[in-house]
Structure formats: C-alpha cells, structure tokens
C-alpha cells in the first residue's frame, strides 16, 4: 500500500522495548488502505488530543441484533478507508485455547475483508476483527462461521461468557470452568444474539477464588470455585516449604481468619473457619490442596461505575454444587438464572444492571423474587440501623 499519511507522533510509539501497537497497525496497513487511513486519523487524534469518531451508528449481521459495533469516521473524506470502521465480535474458544490452523485462517479473513487488525481479546473475551464495512459484514460472518465460530454479544443482551483456563491447565480449579462456560453460551445463544434485556448481562467463570478472569469485578454473575471439606495437607511438603521461607509470617499470619497454626512441626487448619481465600494454597501449592467436595460460589451484580458507582459481585450462593449439576445439564443453575432474568425483566428499568436493581429494591425483595432464603453468608454483617420492617406474616 505504501505510506499515505505522515505519523510523526505515532512513530514515537515504535520506540522502546515493549511490543508496539503502532508497528502492528503499520504491518496491517501494509496490506490495507483502510488501516493506513486509521493510522492517519489516530495521528490526527494524537495531534488534536481528541478522538475523531462519530458517535455510534448502525452495523450488524442479518438475523442478529448483536455482535457488531458500528464506527464511522468524523472525516470520511480525508480517511475514506475508515468511513465505516466497524468491529465484529466473535465468541472465543473457552479458556482462549486455539490452534494455529484456525488462527491463520482468521488472520486471512481479517485481511481479506477488514483492516487486518484484531483484538485478542476484547475486554469481555470476544475475538474482535476491526475495520469492516457493513457491506462486508455478511461475508466475514459466513467465513468465520465456516470455521465453526459464531458472533458474540453486544448491546442489551447476554454478553459472551468467559472463563479462566481452569481444569485444562490449573491445579487449583474446583470445577470445569470451560465446560459450563461453553454450555451456558450454547444454552442462551438466543439471548446472546438477540438483545431483549434491560441492559447487558455478563457471566464469568473462575475455577477458584484467585479469580483469574476477574469475574468478581465485572460480571453480573460470577462463578468462583470453592470447596466444602477440609484442605488436604501434605505435612512433608509443608516442612520443605518451612525450610525455604518464613511460613508463619507469609502464610499463617496472612490467613484472613487466622485459622491455621503449627502444632510442633505440623500444620493444623481449623477448616470450619476457613473462608477458602486460596492464600495458603497459593503459597504452598505442593503441600496444600482444596478438599474433595468441590463446587463454586455465585456472586451477583458486579459492574462498572456508571450510573450509581462501581459494584463488586456480592455473595448470592455460597456453595453451588456445580459438579453435581453438570450431570443434569446444569438444570439447577438454569432455573435460578431464569428466575433472575424474570425478576429483572419485571422490575428492572431500562439500562439498569441487575446489581443496581438489587441495590434499589433491596436484597430481600430480590431473594423472595427468585426463591432463595436469606443466609448470613450473604452479608458482611447484619444490619446496624434499627429500622426493621416487621411484616405480618412473621408474627406469632
């Protein structure tokens, strides 16, 4: 293609040791005029200190209400290649495992039909192909579909679920994150493709409370692996670690409930008081393992700051027997999800995430609505204000 735009400012970002996105854009621009134009517009943003995209605009694939984000240049005449510069979201392989065959073919598609630029991955977990016009959308989609991949979520729908590597490559996984991730994506394909919710809804699955997919911070429903029985201790390995570093100081003293101690040389854990935080297991992976009765906790309502402030996921179900439920095609969780969505549909307002709805109507109302009992694990502590709403049904 050859360099059409001068990009002195962006060129500064080719210096330094960290891999440069500008180099990536240039490599793509070598084959794509539209990415050359993108470079030009971004350079202009660098000069003006302001972005040069028009607000939103439509883009999509027939039959789908989601999966593409429309993007139009503010200066279509100056940068005709990005007059339209939409991106397409593609459901990733769970755990982000791929092979070279698929990736090469996808690279080809992105160069053939779009700007040759991709995101591995978007913040929600989709593969994104950037720089596409509406006219090409169907072709790209069919090409991708032929590789066995489908469009991801966008808008007021179920967003593409994602998960940590889990049992595929991690000894800490308490359940099969990839399996349930794929299963529920499949189950709710329609909810994902055809936005009909009040707002977006996200699932994420982490195999343990290290939460490597950051589910607690950014998914309406976070599934975080845990266990019910005792941590398994290999005392010999404990002793090995104790030779190498100060286990008392760096492990025991940092246990949030101080439920571990040494009796002579042996490590003792008061498992009844363990909150499954993973710290000791992280530090002593050869010596300690989660117990055998495994499952996950379900946290609800995490989201970004707008409109009422950022929210972290809050404990809804301390122990969900996901491994058992897997045998029944995850029936229990599906019925819980449908109760939630019904409640959200009925009581939520437009652009209100489920966490905000619970904040607004109160946890009790929500629990009643979805048929769960209040339990102390849901709260940091019971109420401290005395404004109790006694109801008739509770009186003797």
């Amino acid at each position, binding site marked *: 293609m050859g360099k059409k735009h001068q990009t002195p*400012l962006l060129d500064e*970002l080719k210096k*330094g*040791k*960290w*891999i*440069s*996105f*500008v180099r*990536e854009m240039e490599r*793509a621009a070598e084959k794509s005029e539209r990415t050359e134009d993108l470079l030009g517009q*971004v350079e202009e*943003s*660098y000069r003006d*200190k302001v*972005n040069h995209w028009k*607000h939103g605009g439509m883009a999509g694939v027939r*039959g789908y209400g989601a999966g593409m984000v429309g*993007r139009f240049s503010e200066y279509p005449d100056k940068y005709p290649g990005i007059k339209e510069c939409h991106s397409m979201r593609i*459901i990733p*392989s*769970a*755990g*982000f*495992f*791929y*092979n070279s065959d*698929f*990736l*090469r073919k996808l690279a080809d598609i992105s*160069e053939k039909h779009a700007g*040759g*630029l*991709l*995101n*591995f991955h978007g*913040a929600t977990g989709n593969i994104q192909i950037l720089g596409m016009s509406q006219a090409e959308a169907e072709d790209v989609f*069919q090409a991708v579909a032929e590789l*066995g991949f*489908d469009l991801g979520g966008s808008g007021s729908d179920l967003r593409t679920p994602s998960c*940590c590597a889990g*049992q*595929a*490559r991690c*000894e800490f*996984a308490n359940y099969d994150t990839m399996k349930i991730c794929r299963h529920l*994506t499949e189950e709710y394909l*329609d909810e994902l493709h055809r936005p009909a919710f009040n707002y977006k809804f996200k699932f994420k699955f982490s195999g343990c409370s290290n*939460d*490597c997919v*950051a589910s607690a*911070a950014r998914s309406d429903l976070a599934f*975080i692996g845990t266990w019910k029985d005792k941590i398994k201790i290999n005392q010999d390995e404990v002793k090995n670690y104790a030779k190498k570093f100060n286990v008392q100081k760096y492990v025991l003293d940092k246990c*949030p409930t101080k439920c571990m101690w040494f009796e002579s040389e042996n490590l003792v854990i008061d498992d009844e008081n363990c909150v499954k935080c*993973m710290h000791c297991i992280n530090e002593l992976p050869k010596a300690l393992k989660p117990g055998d009765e495994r499952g996950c906790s379900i946290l609800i309502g995490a989201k970004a*700051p*707008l*409109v009422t*402030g*950022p929210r972290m996921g809050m404990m809804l179900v301390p122990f969900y027997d996901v491994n058992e439920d897997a045998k029944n095609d995850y029936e229990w969780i599906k019925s819980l999800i449908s109760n939630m969505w019904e409640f959200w549909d009925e009581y939520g307002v437009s652009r209100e995430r489920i966490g905000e709805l619970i904040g607004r109507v109160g946890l009790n109302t929500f629990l009643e609505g979805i048929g769960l009992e209040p339990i102390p694990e849901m709260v940091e502590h019971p109420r401290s204000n005395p404004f109790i709403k006694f109801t008739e049904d509770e009186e003797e």
Partner: protein
Amino acid sequence: MAEEVKKKRLTDIGPHDYNEYLSPMIKNNYGKWVYHEIIDPGTMVHVAESGDKLYTVRMGSPRLVSGSFVRDICDIADKYCGGHLRFTTRNNVEFLIEDEKNVEPLKKDLEKMGYNVGGIGNIVANIVHTQGWVHCHTSASDASGVVKSVMDELYEYFIEDKLPSKVRIAFACCLNMCGSVSSSDIAIVGTHRKPPRIDAERLRNLCEIPSTIASCPTNSIRPDTIDGKPGVKVNEETCVFCGSCYTVCPAMPIANAENDGLSIWVGGKVSNARTKPTFSKLAIPFIANDPPRWPGVVNAVKTILNEYKKGAEPGERVGEWIDRIGWPRFFKLTGFPFTKYHIDDFRLAETTMNYSSHARL
C-alpha cells in the same frame, strides 16, 4: 418461501468446541494437575498426577495485533507446540509445550523476532486496556499509546521478578471503564473536565429524552424547551463530567482537547486471596493528555511502583501495602498532593470517612 433458497446460510452455530484445541497432554490430564512451578518470569510448568509436565511460555502482546502477528505466533506454535497455544485473560500469548527441550529454543526464537517473554510471577502484568482513539467514540484519551509508554518504562518488571507481588495495571479511556479497571493495583482512567455541549437539533432527532435524563449519576439533566421544542439542559453546577449522557445521546459531546486527560487510581484487587476484592482509590485526579509519550502518567505510575517496591513486604499487593502504611503516608511518599477531590462526595461518600481517632501523627 424465499428464505428457503438461502438454507445453507450459516447462523447461530454457537460457541466452538474448545476440545478441538486442547493438546493431547491437556486432554489426558484435564482436571488432574497437581502443582505448578514458576521457572522464570517467562516460563512455568504444570505437573499432573500422571507425572506429565506441561510447560508454558508467556509472551507479551499489545492486544491490538495484525494478521502478521497472528502468523508469527502460529509459526512458533507449529514449530514447538504442535500448533497449540492460548491467550490469557490479560491478553498475553501462552505457548503450551509438551517437550521440555523446546522451551529455551522457543524463547530464543521469540526474542529474536522482537517479542517480549515474561509476565509470570511477581511482575507487572500486561496492562489490560480498551480502544482509545483507535476505535471508541467516547474516549477521553488514547489507550494503546499510554499503555505502550508505561510498559516501555516498566519493561524490566515484566521480564524480571523483582516486585513484592504481582502488580496489575489497567487502563480505560472513559468512565465506562471497560475491563476490571476499577479494581486494579494501579488504574489509569480517561477523564473529562467540562460539561457536555448540547446540540439541540441533533438531540431532537437522535436522543430519547427520558433515558438521557436517567443516564446522569448526579441528576444534572433536566427537560428543557429549546426554540419551543423539547430538549434538555445541563446543570453545570452539579455535572461531574462523566460522559454518561454522551453514551446515551450522541448530541451531547463532552470531549474537549484542552481539558481532557487521565486520572490515576491505586490499591484495588479482584482476587479473594487474603483480603476481599476491593476498588482502586483516587491517587491523582488529573494529568493532562500529553501524547505521544504521556510523561505525566508514566512518571506517576513509576513513582507509585518505586515506593511500593521499596516499602511493601513480600507478598503484599499495592493495596495491602497502602493499608499497612496508611493513606497519609502514601501521599507523603509519592509526593502526590491530597486535595478536596480525594474526599468522596458521591452517593455512599459518608461510608469512606475515618470514623475513629486512629491517625498517624
């Protein structure tokens, strides 16, 4: 029906079966890993019950990549990993190696090609980030350029393990905060400082007034009549420049070249290890956009990292370190001024005050 002739059009095929991409060793040991060891900041090994060992080499990625990048990593995967590779939740590439003797050659090849190997252990992790000026209409700053500038400066901490714990930095170009930005060890967030401008005519055509009003966290938008037609007005006394209205209504642009920039937040975390997940807290309310190399942000992040490295005990995340030394000392050590902006004044502000006589004097 006309539809019938198009029967072969593929649609709603659902998520791909990941099993297709799992290497034989992973399939055999699925759910049966027993422990892992970090060999160096670029390499770890997972050991299975069976005794099988899976080596992982991690490589930095700018996330926004070209087809050529994809082919590069595919070549490496073919050469050493039977074509198997994955991405991490923070956008790094991971090569999954079954044969130990492929580890070092693979790393050499990557380095020869100019790629960065590292990111495992007590490192600065790859910065999760968003679109910025490259693709998003609401951005108050660029994303990739800031990330690149910061990572260049912190490069040594990606390839070497010399921090007290992992440091996760995240970047978002506006308050929508795509990503787990609001609970990062260090967060960099694009920030406006002027109220939205109202384009009355476009507003009538493009925006739904009730949802525009509802989008505002501070109730600063009121219905208004403009030239006898329905519109909205903004109370500039209470507007907090969040851009939420612009997300909903294109006729209320808020970007402002002179007044946009970045804010810095510290001490958040997502993991439940030891302490509960917690949000990042304001460190610096505003640093003007200063492309192409964003020295202000780079220095701020470096300052925090230096003090953290000097002061934290092994295993302490940034927030745990600050909790131990206290916020007054954090501000003293970094030299960042504490201002009225640091005192919360939003919805739950009153829960963030110091309800005690505890103070370091």
